[in-house]
């Protein structure tokens, strides 16, 4: 006869000294945890609610400009710095962490319309309606700088006067060229007072320009003749061009998939294109109810942020049709420029009310140092939420966003318009000979033609 019974001496299962950690035992047997699916669902629901509770995206406003903020530029070499320029010709460098001006760059007579920093972060290029391009040497950030409250004044290192007012500027990645947009597209060198190259197509002015992050010689522009054009600096003329129904205010290249670009359009939508195949958009990002003024990609390439004339900032997934987040405050006016911070954690928006606003990219993210246990908990919550995201209760909580009344009303109007259009189309189709009326998908509908 062999007998064994369970006997646990408490010495083996408890700690020896009070300084020791408590001993923890695991048994993953499913029968010890009854109703695990219900519990998991309950946790998903809790996680969704907690996400809502902790969603406080607004960190603070950066006050200082005396006119509407017209453009911003990231400092690629310094995480905490951001440049901003306003309609009265004021350019400032901000320290994001303390939300204070580090230094000012006075000189422009009219509105500054374009601002960009070189990839090494040493040179700042600005241009504006006063027909000048100014180059500035950016002060090197030092430890004392952030604590000094007195504002430094910087003088421009170069000032080039040209024939026409400028609308935008962008610096090349890995090179010393920059492009300005105005009556035509001009390519400049740091050291020359005149553009080294000029492109013109038609008579309409170019309103935005953006260099490709992958190929240093490729850039995309949009013009007020409603066109989007891709140029190759090695060629004498444009590479490809499409005309859309409404003009494009801004363009951003996806930094992780540099052949793709997203265009912020006047009709309130953003259109993602494959740069090699412009006749059809890859995805239409709908949600804004008014013109989208600016767009910037997250350095991860999975998301982009847009600022709109409807006084809201939205964050879209790069392949999703609708935004995942909307940011708005009562005091924020028309948003003219938005930037994703270089660590993909923050979003900065500049608006007509002379303020820069700092937002969290993930509204409910916990900032600061996170303990491993906390991190694990966040990951678990994310996982259960993801698992049950299609169940109606969880879906409702996760999807819901409070909208300001004007946007909510405008959405209703837009919906009614679209519905009536669709109905009309259906009826026309029903009463025409089969095949005479072809409905194009939205991805093609807003594109008029592709010009070679």
């Amino acid at each position: 006869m062999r007998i064994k019974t369970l006997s646990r001496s408490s010495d083996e299962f408890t700690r020896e000294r009070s300084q020791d950690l408590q001993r923890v035992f695991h048994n993953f047997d499913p029968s010890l945890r009854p109703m695990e699916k219900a519990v998991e669902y309950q946790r998903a629901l809790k996680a969704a609610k907690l996400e809502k509770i902790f969603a406080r995206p607004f960190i603070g406003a950066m006050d200082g400009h005396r006119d509407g903020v017209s453009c911003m530029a990231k400092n690629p070499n310094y995480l905490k710095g951001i440049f901003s320029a306003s309609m009265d010709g004021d350019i400032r460098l901000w320290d994001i962490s303390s939300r204070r001006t580090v230094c000012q760059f006075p000189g422009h007579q009219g509105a500054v319309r374009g601002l960009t920093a070189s990839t090494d972060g040493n040179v700042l290029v600005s241009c504006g309606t006063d027909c000048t391009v100014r180059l500035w040497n950016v002060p090197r950030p030092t430890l004392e700088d952030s604590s000094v409250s007195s504002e430094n004044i910087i003088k421009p290192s170069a000032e080039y006067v040209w024939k026409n007012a400028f609308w935008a500027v962008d610096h090349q990645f890995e090179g010393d060229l920059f492009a300005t947009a105005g009556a035509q597209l001009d390519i400049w060198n740091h050291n020359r007072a005149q553009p080294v190259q000029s492109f013109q197509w038609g008579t309409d002015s170019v309103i935005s320009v953006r260099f490709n992050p992958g190929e240093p010689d490729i850039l995309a522009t949009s013009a007020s003749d409603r066109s989007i054009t891709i140029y190759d600096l090695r060629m004498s003329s444009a590479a490809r061009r499409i005309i859309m129904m409404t003009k494009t205010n801004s363009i951003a290249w996806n930094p992780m998939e540099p052949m793709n670009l997203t265009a912020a359009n006047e009709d309130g939508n953003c259109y993602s294109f494959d740069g090699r195949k412009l006749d059809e958009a890859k995805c239409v990002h709908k949600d804004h109810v008014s013109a989208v003024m600016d767009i910037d990609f997250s350095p991860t390439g999975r998301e982009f942020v847009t600022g709109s004339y409807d006084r809201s900032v939205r964050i879209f997934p790069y392949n999703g049709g609708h935004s995942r987040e909307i940011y708005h405050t009562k005091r924020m006016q028309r948003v003219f420029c938005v930037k994703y911070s270089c660590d993909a954690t923050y979003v900065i928006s500049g608006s007509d009310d002379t303020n820069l606003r700092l937002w969290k990219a993930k509204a409910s993210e916990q900032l600061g140092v996170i303990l491993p246990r906390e991190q694990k908990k966040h990951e678990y919550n994310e996982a259960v939420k993801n698992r049950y995201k299609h169940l109606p209760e969880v879906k409702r909580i996760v999807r819901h966003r409070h909208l300001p009344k004007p946007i909510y009303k405008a959405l209703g109007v837009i919906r009614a318009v679209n519905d009536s259009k669709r109905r009309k189309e259906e009826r026309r189709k029903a009463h025409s000979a089969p095949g005479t009326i072809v409905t194009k998908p939205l991805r093609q509908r807003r594109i008029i033609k592709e010009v070679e």
Partner: protein
Amino acid sequence: MELSSEDNNLTDKVLPPVEQESDVELETKVKKYLRGEGANLEVYNMHIALMIVAFRCEMQFLIMVSTCLLQTLEDKKLKTHLASREKLYGKSAKAAAKIEKWLLPAEAGYLETDGLEKTWRVKQTDIANEVDLLSSRNQYDIVLPDFGPYRLDFTASGRHMLAGGRKGHIALVDMMSMNLIKEIQVRETVRDVAFLHNEQFFAAAQKKYAYIYGRDGTELHCLKERGPVARLQFLKNHFLLASVNKSGQLHYQDVTYGGMVASIRTGKGRTDVMEVNPYNGVVALGHSGGTVTMWKPTSQAPLVQMQCHPGPVSSVAFHPNGHLMATSGKERKIKIWDLRKFEEIQTIHGFHAKTLSFSQKGLLAAGTGSFVQILGDSSGGSSHNYSRYMNHPMVKGYQIEKLMFRPYEDVIGIGHSMGWSSILIPGSGEPNFDSWVANPFETSKQRREKEVHMLLDKLPPETIMLDPSKIGAMRPSRRKEKPSRGEIEAEKEVAIEAAKSTELKNKTKGRNKPSKRTKKKKEMVENAKRTFPEQGHNTTLKKRRIGEDAAAELPTSLKRFARKN
């Protein structure tokens, strides 16, 4: 343990028999942790895909699958997504199985005999000689002749025991240190006692009302709404205190905020047989008519009514995995039921059990009079064949009131008319506890933290249902699939054939004439035809309108009026 596929092929031949055996063992464990079949992505069948996905409860896939409504799983994106998900499930199940095989600290207890020795001849005194001192301390009798019979309840971790004597004696005992934490005398009848979520609170069903007491014996609440309660049970995941009273009413009360969640008239008369299925939280009641009914708080009608015994049901018990139920009737039978099919698996004759209890490892204890019988699953869990495992005769004249296995220990507690006893049953308890589920060595800080987590994970009463794995899965569509015309035709043929081939009975008094017989047969065939709706009906309707084929002949201007399908 990780081997590449080529290595696997080689080692298959070389593996010694012991390791092959362990591989089989590992596979059964992996199966346990997978909690069901995985999706077979190579099977191009919509229904199978639907079923599997429903099982896995991946709503997202389900919606996508059901919208594409194809016979094949053609969506490559979905397929790779599903495949990667399955791989992940497989990996985690394998990891869990390996942990169970190699890393769990303790092994289950056992009682093995050789030769002609039988396990049920082994007496408690024999066991006491063999086991260590710590275990033998678990064999004892507490004799309290004045207050019995006693009812018992253990906390989920098995650390604390609550004993309630009929004559008003309630005692809270720490089983590890054998300390009496608190005893109170309520000076009225106590019909049942039950712990709430931990040892800090317990409920007692007394003469007129049920009461909730704190650990130190102070009365916290008097639950007047329920009337004189006969049995109390606590649903841990839902924080519901379920009770059945003398007039056969079932009450569910949420102990977190005190609201009465449901009060249900069972309509079956008074009963004192009540048990909670730990797997799904469904409450089972045994009635004097021999039926067992199962209830959830959100419905006034029983979920299940089973006629289990011809006479009164004297006890009900549930296996911890929720698939087995044991019932005993006054007609001296114990029956084991499969709750997945609601079928009887086994009948054990000749033993009337006043109380039944399943242990964590699946042993079944039955007690009547002064005799305890332990039944074991001799088939090793595959076919559930219960046969006797151990016996324990108590002192003559003791009347057993309640048997309950102590969780995570090889011990059974016996509440009887002369106090309570505890005996050793090797192999009854789960050897490895999980600190996050139930920890016998819990500190007060851990207990407090656990309480908060339990409250955060509290389930709403709607989650009580017969199959809790359905939560998060998609409900199958209610619309029946229309049988195709061919199927209807075939069915009709079969029915007509059956009508034709029926043999008519011989009738008398002129009704058996051949003419009458043929007429009767014709009638039967007509009847058989009539049960199927006319198929030609639709086609005539169609022709009245301008049909689809007519559209081809129409001039272009009139085509718009052609009917489209």
